């Protein structure tokens, strides 16, 4: 079964949907704090974000453990699901921080 890239992305988005609301809310909070307090909050916010992603990983792995078989039966392993969606979420966080920094600087 060779999955088409579009299908893989669709499955990854379906999985990301499980936790995107929580992580996006955290990202928005971090951006707001960064906007108000500046560069000095960069590292604490990064650690906060990583910590909350760890919690999300723990809870989703427990509560959505059974769903993993759906993705596996379609050729997307647990490692791919987590690495892709977490990488996307972290990238979104970093890009948002950079944009906020640029806005603050101008």
């Amino acid at each position, binding site marked *: *079964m060779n999955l088409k890239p579009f299908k893989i992305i669709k499955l990854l988005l379906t999985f990301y949907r499980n936790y995107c609301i929580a992580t996006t809310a955290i990202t928005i909070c971090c951006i707001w704090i960064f906007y108000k307090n500046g560069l000095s909050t960069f590292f604490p916010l990064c650690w906060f974000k990583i910590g909350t992603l760890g919690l999300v990983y723990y809870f989703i792995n427990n509560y959505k453990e059974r*769903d993993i*078989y*759906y993705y596996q*039966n*379609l050729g997307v*392993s647990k490692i791919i699901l987590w690495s892709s969606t977490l990488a996307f979420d972290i990238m979104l966080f970093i890009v948002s921080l950079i944009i906020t920094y640029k806005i603050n600087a101008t």
Partner: protein
Amino acid sequence: MQHKFEVDSIQLEFGTKRILSDIYFKCETGKVTGILGRNGQGKTCLMNVVYGNLNPVSKSIRFDNMTIFQAFKRPDLLTYLPQFNFIPSHLTLKRIFSDFDLSFSDFENIFPEFSNKFKSSIKTLSGGQRRLIEVYVIIKSKAQFSMLDEPFSHLMPIQIEKVTELLAIEKSKKGFLITDHMFRYVTEISDYLYVLKDCKTHLIKDLTEIENLGYARI
């Protein structure tokens, strides 16, 4: 071309408790292999070991003599129906059939009671209907082999008959490994039958052996 999938040398232990130790079974395309066993004998563990989700001390799983360690990475070789609901509850039947590249009208022809459910999400279905969808998509999945853990649970007798008919048709294209406590259905459709007892698989040549192994009264 006939394909073969063989499993042996599995050693699975949880702490000091030995779960599986002397295992051998084979599955071939065009055949159904049934595994029976009392509760707690390790049938589900065995399937998870084969699928690669459970790591034993040792194992040898070969598809056409090629060793595969993580079968879940090869849905072209093996798909797996776990004993619980595994389809994310918010997905619609339309999406599920599209993901598995299956025709909903073929499904509707066999199970007409689903004719107005195409756009419904799976969580709106009853437990039996939900299980039927899961059983159907795995049976029809485009893999050489499918493992079915308790495919008949939650299904009505009439649905079980339709599923066994479907298995008989689909086995011309692929091989199945089935375990279920509704052993009469399993013995009826199986070409090879094993009983898992005391960590070992016992090949059944005569149905009376099932009784001798203490699994069921024939």
